[in-house]
């Protein structure tokens, strides 16, 4: 090296390195992924991992420095402090406690979707609408949460059939939560939208979340209603709402049925042509009617994973052509893989976000740990009910199943999750495992949840490693 002679040449490593905890899993036939205690990963091979563990990784190994810089090996006193800081950051959302509060304002609905088990085609307001008294009691719980950011989401049935109650709740919440950042979201099909609703929602900065399963033939097959015109009605109302409120105020959610599996590209293209900048490729939830009609609309997880990969590829292609559209589940996982920043998605964290991330106040005053909890209740199983809106807040949280459920289902302790390389990226879904396997701890080798997330995470890591174009697109969705 042509350094002026008064300078010292680089040193060899003088101190021995200490091996730090890490986990690993095969990525494909040739490669392994190793993940450190804070969630940083490295793609390597089995030989390197074996030598690393044996303390025999040669300093000239091309990844020797990477193992050190990513805290698999330590020569510095600071390494532990940095790992601790990564873990602390990952969990930094916990003290905020419950941020998402769902109000089921009515069960009445004009649709009779195969995968929904709660909605009723009925005129009986008294039986299936939430009352203002129930809403008042629920609101008191909402503002017991210390979270500075409160999201109130209105669920149905078809929520707009009880718009009077939505208004009532928004008005009250704005008074009770004057010092908080509150966001309101209405989950709806927009079928009953009118000028009054549009104007009110524009003034109160309300967001809409609509169901959109894909092109008309698919959407209408999944979401039957009298006249079989669900798609046309959504499209028409979408236009009206966006014109008045702005494009960004309406988002869409899709559910993947057996029929959807054959049309991944068409579904993505439909989202693009309707101008959405986000699509969330959601598998069917295994609850309620969805469970009963499983033979008709259900499928194996590997079929979903195949569908997901093709659809994601289509999404990436659109981005490369200059149309920005983000796949929400991928975005969520990337954030967990590539950063230590906390994510708020209830089913992809540990401890689970049930109750402590989200609460659901049902039309009849019962309080559930999650949306799917009330769906299970309709099947006659009230395990995920933690009480009634009239109960004391402390009792809801501490006097119910909630805490044991959260504690026993943490990935840090669950068999197979505890030594899984991806446990910091993944999360726990106690309700899913209870429903499909009989208890909230579950059995990972036969868990669809586990299979799906393992496959998708591996697929994303491969895209990041092997495909420069995809990598650029994926990174552009971050953080």
């Amino acid at each position, binding site marked *: 090296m*042509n350094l002026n002679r008064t300078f010292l040449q*680089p040193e060899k490593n003088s101190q021995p390195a200490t091996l730090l905890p890490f986990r690993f899993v095969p990525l494909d036939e040739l490669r392994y992924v190793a993940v450190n205690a804070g969630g940083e990963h490295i793609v390597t091979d089995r030989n390197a991992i074996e030598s690393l563990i044996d303390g025999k990784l040669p300093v000239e190994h091309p990844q020797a420095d990477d193992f050190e*810089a990513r805290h698999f090996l330590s020569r*510095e006193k600071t390494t532990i*402090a940095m790992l601790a800081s990564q873990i602390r950051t990952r969990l930094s959302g916990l003290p905020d406690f419950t941020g998402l509060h769902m109000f089921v304002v009515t069960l009445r609905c004009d649709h009779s979707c195969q995968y929904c088990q709660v909605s009723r085609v009925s005129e009986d307001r008294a039986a299936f609408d939430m009352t203002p008294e129930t809403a008042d009691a629920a609101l008191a719980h909402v503002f017991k949460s210390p979270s500075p950011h409160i999201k109130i989401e209105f669920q149905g049935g078809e929520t707009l059939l009880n718009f009077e109650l939505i208004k009532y709740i928004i008005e009250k919440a704005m008074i009770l939560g004057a010092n908080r950042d509150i966001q309101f979201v209405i989950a709806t099909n927009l079928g009953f939208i009118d000028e009054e609703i549009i104007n009110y929602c524009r003034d109160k900065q309300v967001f809409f979340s609509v169901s959109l399963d894909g092109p008309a033939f698919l959407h209408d097959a999944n979401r039957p209603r009298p006249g079989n015109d669900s798609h046309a009605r959504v499209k028409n109302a979408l236009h009206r709402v966006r014109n008045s409120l702005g494009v960004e105020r309406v988002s869409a959610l899709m559910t993947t049925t057996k029929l959807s599996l054959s049309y991944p590209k068409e579904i993505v293209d439909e989202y693009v042509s309707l101008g959405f900048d986000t699509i969330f490729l959601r598998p069917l939830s295994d609850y309620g009617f969805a469970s009963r009609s499983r033979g008709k609309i259900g499928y194996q997880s590997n079929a979903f994973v195949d569908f997901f990969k093709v659809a994601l590829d289509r999404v990436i292609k659109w981005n490369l052509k200059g149309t920005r559209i983000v796949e929400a589940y991928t975005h969520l996982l990337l954030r967990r893989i590539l*950063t230590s920043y906390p994510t708020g998605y209830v089913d992809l964290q540990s401890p689970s976000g049930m109750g402590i991330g989200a609460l659901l106040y049902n039309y009849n005053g019962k309080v559930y740990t999650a949306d799917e909890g009330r769906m299970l209740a309709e099947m006659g199983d009230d395990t995920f009910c933690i009480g009634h809106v009239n109960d004391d807040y402390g009792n809801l949280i501490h006097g119910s199943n909630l805490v044991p459920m959260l504690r026993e289902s943490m990935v840090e302790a669950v068999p197979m999750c505890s030594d899984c390389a991806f446990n910091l990226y993944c999360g726990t879904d106690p309700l899913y495992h209870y429903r499909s396997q009989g208890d909230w701890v579950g059995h990972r080798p036969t868990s669809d949840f586990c299979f799906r997330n393992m496959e998708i995470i591996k697929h994303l890591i491969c895209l990041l490693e092997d495909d420069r174009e995809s990598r*650029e697109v994926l*990174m552009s969705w971050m953080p």
Partner: protein
Amino acid sequence: MILHSRIEVQDGGKHIRRVGQRVDDCQTALLAAGRILQFNDEEGIVRYIALPENLHPPQEGDILRIDLSAGTIGFLYRKASPHNALFITERCNSRCIMCSQPPRSIDDDYLIEEILEMLPLVSAETVEMGITGGEPTLLGEKLIQVIQSLKNNLPQTAVHMLTNGRAFKSQQWAKRIGDIQHQDLMLGIPVYSDIARLHDFIVQSQGAFDETIRGILNLASHDVPIEIRVVTHKQSLPRLRETALYIARNFPFVRQVALMGLELVGFARSNIDALWEEPCEYGDTLIEAVSELSCRGVKVLIFNHPLCVLPQKLWPYAVKSISDWKNVYIKECELCAVRERCGGLFASSEVRRPKGIKPFSEAPASPPQCPAFVTASL
């Protein structure tokens, strides 16, 4: 005798009154034809100084150092400049192979005394004030006094201090800085590699990496805003992307990361062959480093690179970073359509001009942004 004077211009620059802290009774100085400074010294004797030809004409609000015994005069502060800095010491505990201000082990404590004296004279409208060296933290308690004085005398002024951060391995020292509660202080701290032995080699000091990293963590725990600086050269570029990843994963709290081109003075000049890489050849490495940081929501800036040697998708990150008194635009720049947005070159670049300096006949319509470069905030 050294006097610090704030210049007040009257009569369109013909008369200059100097208000000095140590000579309050003096007060009128006449600038004859703009080149002669008249003032009263401590004993009240009228003195005249002919200003050197190469000295920038003093403006109202500027502060001069007049050293009668050494026969020197120079600016300590120029009100019109956005690049004022307090040069606190020439001493340093590192000896970076590309240092543009090679350290000297001399007794220069007078510098900080001077600074403490002049700060009350500085205009309260000053937007930013730098603190540089040498290594400012070697001054210990005196440095705390300087920052405290900046806080008291210049409550509107942002302060940016360049330090190697090693002193803050002491939690107590980090706390001292945090406890000042300065309204707008940022520490610029270099991290040259993600690997201890490479960083230690670049700064020529065993154990420096560990001290700097502990310093950064300690400062962060006291909420002191931090900028990380990485100088791009032959020794740092091979792991620049990994270094960016390391910073983004371990220090996501930093305010910004500056990727900085070489300034070819001092040791950088004598070590040029061990350091020089053509900027136009490491564009892809810069893109990867920027991408690792920006995708994790860390703000990143590129310093000291003229636009014509950078890939256009990095243009949104390039800032005009070279201090006015050492900043040049060369013949090729005269006709360039993007000259206004470009930071130009160091005057010292005459030692070795980067390849690929060329004028743009027209500005690109909109800087093409690759999808990986959506600037995002958390």
